[in-house]
C-alpha cells in the first residue's frame, strides 16, 4: 500500500500529532531507526543528555513546569535500566511521561542478545502502564493511548518498548481521533459524580469550628485552574491552609490564610493546627508518612474529608469520614457553587478563636536560627536567594536532603508549577536535570537548582548538556561537605557517628564549572553572598554558585519518625524522650 510508512516514521508522526515539541534522549543501537527519522525532520527538538537518568528527570522537570507530557527516547538494555529511577520518581509524584525504549529485534528477544533486557518486565511496577509493540500497525494506536493514559486521571509514566525490526517495518498510521480507548482503561467520572458526598463535605466544612485545608500535589496536577478555585474556596471559608512539599504554590506563601508547609520539617503552626483541627479538608494529598508522622496520634479529633482522583489513596493509611473521588478542579468548583447556593457561612467567633490559637503558635517562630558570624547559614543563603529573585519569574528545583527542606521552608512560592522537587521517591540527582527540562520549557525564565554538594554530583555530567544547549540554569550549591540529612540523622539517632556521610575530595566546583565552559562562582562569607547571587542571576550562561555554608547545621523544626504532629523538635537542645527515639530509629 502506498500510504504505508516505517515504524520509526509512525513514532515521529504520533509525537507530532500529540503536540510534542521536545524529546529528551540518548541514542543507541536499538533506536537508530528512530534517530535516523528524527534527523530528517525539524518539528521536534531533541535534547541530548549525558546519561539516560538525566533524560527522564529533565522530562519530569519539563512536564511539571509546563503541564505538558514529558517525552524520553532511549535505547534498549542499559538505556532502559538507566531510566528506571526516573520512572519510579514520576510514578510516585504523578508526573505524565511517555518513555520510548528501543528493544532488540523480535527474533532475538529472549536470547540474551547484546543490550537486551526485559524492559516491560523491569518497568511494570514503576510505570502506570507499559507496552511491548510487536505489530507495526498497532504502533500509532499504542502511542495515542499511551499519551492519554499518562495524562488521564492520576498522571504517571507510560513506557513503550519497540523492537528494532518494528521500527524498520512498514505499516499504516492512524490518527488520534480515530483511536477509541475503552472506558475501563481510563478514569472517567460520571457527570453527576459524588454529588451527595460533595454536599456532605461542604456542610461539614460550614459547621467547622477549627477547620484546616491540607493541600497536596494533586491540586497542581489538576492544572492552574484548580489552584485558582482552591484559593477562592479557602478565602470564602476563611480557613487556615497548609501545603505538602508537593503542594507548595497552590496557595501563595504570602496569602493571609497560608500556614506554609506541614510534615516532618513543616511549620510548627501547620502541624499543631493539623493536630487540633476539628475538620480537615485534604485536597489532592495522600497522607504520606512524611506528613502524618505517627498514625495513631494523627489529628485525633477531626472529621476528615479526602478529595483524591485515585481511589486507592482513600483509607490507605488514614481512615476518612467523607471520601470524594474526583478531579480537584471539578470537585472544588462544585463545592464553591454549593457553598454559595446554600449561603453557608462559618461561625466567625469560633473561627476567630481558632486563628488566635494559630497566631500564638506562630509566635514561636519555628524557623528561627542563629545567624551570627561571618559564615553563611544555609537558611540565610536560601532567604537571600529568595529576596533577590522574587521579582523575576523563577523556577526552583532541588535535589534531596537538608537543602531541599531549607528551600521548601525559606523560598516563598506564590504560584503553582514553579517548584520542582522529588517528593515521593526522594531522588538525589533529580534537581539539576529537572532544571534543564524546566529551562527548555521556559527559555526566558530564571531556573535555579538549589542543590547540596553530594546530590549535585549524582548527575553532574548534565553540565555538558546545559552548556551545549545554552541553557542558563543556575546551580546553587549549599556546600557543607556533608550529606547533610544523613549526618543530621546520625547526630540525632546514631550517637553522632558520621559513618560515610562526609565527602572528602569534593571537586573545586568553580573549576568544574569552568571546565565545562560554564561560569563558576563562590561565596565564603555572608558579605560575599549577595554579590554572588546577583552575579549568578545576571550571567547569561550556565552557572555553578558554590556557597560555603556552616557544616553542621541541622534542619528544624523536625518531627522525628514515629512521633506525632504535636511532638515537634524545634532545636537540637530539645531532646526527644529516649523510648520514642529508639522506636523511631527503625523507621525511615
Amino acid at each position, binding site marked *: 500500500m502506498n500510504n504505508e510508512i516505517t515504524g520509526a516514521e509512525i513514532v515521529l508522526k504520533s509525537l507530532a500529532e500529540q503536540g510534542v515539541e521536545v524529546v529528551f534522549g540518548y541514542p543507541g543501537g536499538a533506536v537508530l531507526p528512530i534517530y535516523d527519522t528524527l534527523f530528517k525532520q525539524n518539528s521536534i527538538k531533541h535534547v541530548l543528555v549525558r546519561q539516560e537518568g538525566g533524560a527522564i528527570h529533565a522530562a519530569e522537570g519539563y512536564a511539571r513546569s509546563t503541564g505538558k507530557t514529558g517525552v524520553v527516547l532511549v535505547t534498549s538494555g542499559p538505556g532502559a535500566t538507566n531510566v528506571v529511577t526516573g520512572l519510579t520518581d514520576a510514578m510516585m509524584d504523578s508526573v505524565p511521561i511517555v518513555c520510548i525504549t528501543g528493544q532488540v529485534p523480535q527474533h532475538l528477544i529472549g536470547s540474551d542478545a547484546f543490550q537486551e533486557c526485559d524492559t516491560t518486565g523491569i518497568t511494570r*511496577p514503576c510505570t502506570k502502564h507499559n507496552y511491548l509493540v510487536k505489530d507495526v500497525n498497532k504502533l500509532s494506536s499504542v502511542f495515542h493511548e499511551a499519551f492519554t493514559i499518562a495524562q488521564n486521571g492520576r498522571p504517571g509514566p507510560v513506557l513503550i518498548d519497540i523492537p528494532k525490526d518494528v521500527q524498520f517495518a512498514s505499516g499504516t498510521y492512524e490518527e488520534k481521533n480515530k483511536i477509541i480507548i*475503552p472506558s475501563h482503561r481510563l478514569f472517567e467520572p460520571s457527570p453527576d459524580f459524588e454529588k451527595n458526598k460533595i454536599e456532605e463535605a461542604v456542610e461539614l466544612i460550614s459547621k467547622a469550628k477549627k477547620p484546616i485545608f491540607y493541600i497536596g500535589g494533586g491540586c497542581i496536577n489538576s492544572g492552574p485552574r484548580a489552584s485558582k478555585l482552591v484559593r477562592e474556596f479557602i478565602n470564602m471559608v476563611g480557613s487556615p491552609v497548609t501545603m505538602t512539599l508537593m503542594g507548595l504554590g497552590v496557595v501563595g506563601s504570602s496569602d493571609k490564610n497560608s500556614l506554609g508547609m506541614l510534615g516532618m520539617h513543616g511549620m510548627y503552626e501547620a502541624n499543631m493546627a493539623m493536630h487540633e483541627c476539628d475538620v480537615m479538608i485534604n485536597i489532592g494529598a495522600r497522607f504520606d*508518612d512524611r506528613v502524618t508522622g505517627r*498514625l*495513631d496520634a494523627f489529628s485525633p479529633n477531626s472529621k476528615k474529608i479526602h478529595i483524591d482522583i485515585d481511589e*486507592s489513596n482513600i483509607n490507605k493509611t488514614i481512615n476518612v469520614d467523607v471520601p470524594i473521588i474526583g478531579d480537584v478542579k471539578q470537585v472544588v468548583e462544585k463545592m464553591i457553587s454549593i457553598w454559595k447556593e446554600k449561603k453557608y457561612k462559618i461561625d466567625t467567633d469560633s473561627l476567630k478563636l481558632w486563628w488566635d490559637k494559630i497566631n500564638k503558635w506562630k509566635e514561636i517562630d519555628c524557623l528561627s536560627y542563629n545567624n551570627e558570624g561571618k559564615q553563611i547559614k544555609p537558611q540565610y543563603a536560601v532567604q537571600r536567594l529568595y529576596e533577590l529573585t522574587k521579582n523575576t519569574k523563577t523556577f526552583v528545583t532541588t535535589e534531596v536532603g537538608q537543602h531541599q527542606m531549607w528551600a521548601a521552608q525559606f523560598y516563598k512560592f506564590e504560584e503553582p508549577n514553579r517548584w520542582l522537587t522529588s517528593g515521593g521517591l526522594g531522588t538525589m540527582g533529580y534537581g539539576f536535570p529537572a532544571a534543564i527540562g524546566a529551562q527548555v520549557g521556559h527559555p526566558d525564565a530564571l531556573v535555579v537548582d538549589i542543590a547540596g554538594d553530594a546530590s549535585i554530583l549524582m548527575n553532574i555530567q548534565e553540565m555538558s548538556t546545559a552548556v551545549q544547549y545554552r541553557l542558563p540554569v543556575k546551580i546553587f550549591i549549599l556546600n557543607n561537605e556533608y550529606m547533610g540529612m544523613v549526618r543530621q540523622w546520625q547526630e540525632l539517632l546514631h550517637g553522632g557517628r558520621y559513618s560515610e556521610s562526609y565527602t572528602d575530595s569534593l571537586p573545586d566546583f568553580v573549576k568544574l564549572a569552568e571546565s565545562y565552559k560554564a561560569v563558576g562562582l563562590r561565596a565564603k562569607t555572608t558579605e560575599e553572598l549577595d554579590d554572588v547571587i546577583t552575579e549568578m542571576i545576571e550571567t547569561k550562561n550556565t552557572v555553578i554558585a558554590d556557597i560555603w555554608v556552616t557544616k553542621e547545621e541541622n534542619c528544624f523544626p523536625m518531627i522525628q519518625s514515629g512521633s506525632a504532629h504535636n511532638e515537634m523538635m524545634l532545636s537540637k537542645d530539645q531532646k526527644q524522650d529516649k523510648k520514642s527515639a529508639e522506636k523511631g530509629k*527503625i*523507621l525511615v
Partner: protein
Amino acid sequence: MNKSVYASPDQVSETKRHILTVLVDNEPGVLARVIGMFSGRGYNIDSLNVAEVSNDENISRITIVTHGTSEVVSQIEKQLLRIVPVHSVTNLDQEGSSVEAEVALVYIYISDTNKKKVYQLCDLYRARKIENENNTTIFEIAGASERVNRFIKEINEITKVEIVRSGPVAISSIKKNEEE
C-alpha cells in the same frame, strides 16, 4: 490498611478468606501486573486461576483467593482497579452468596489390600476415575474446597497419593437485573 511500620493500631477487623474475581483484557503481561501488585505490596495469594472467558471481547477472568482484614482486602481491590487492563473487581464474599468449586486430580497408589477401601471412598465422594493410556488410577474430584480437603485427608489415611488442585473458581449466585 497497609502493613507499614507506621501502621495504626486501631485495626479491629479480623483476617478472613476472600475470593476476588477480576475481569481483565487478555493481553500480554496482564497476569504479571496482577500478581506483581500482590508481591510488590506484600499481599497474600492463596490460590490463583486464570482463563479466557469471552473470545469475542478478549476478556479473561482471574480468580484470586486471598486473606486479610477487610481494610487490607479493600485496599487490594482498589490497587487492582488501578491496573489499566482491569475491567472490574468483585469481592464475592462481600456480595453474600456465590458458588465456588475446584478440581483436583489424584494419582492413587492402589494395591490389593487397599483397593476396596479406595473405591468405596471414591464412590462416597463421587470422585470419577479417569481412563488413561497407561492404565494408572487417577481420580478427578470437583466441588467446594472443603469437600476436596476432606477427600484428600481421608484418602491419605488409606494410601499414598499425588495431588494437583486447580484452586477455587467462583461465581456470584445473585440474580442480575438483565436476566430477570
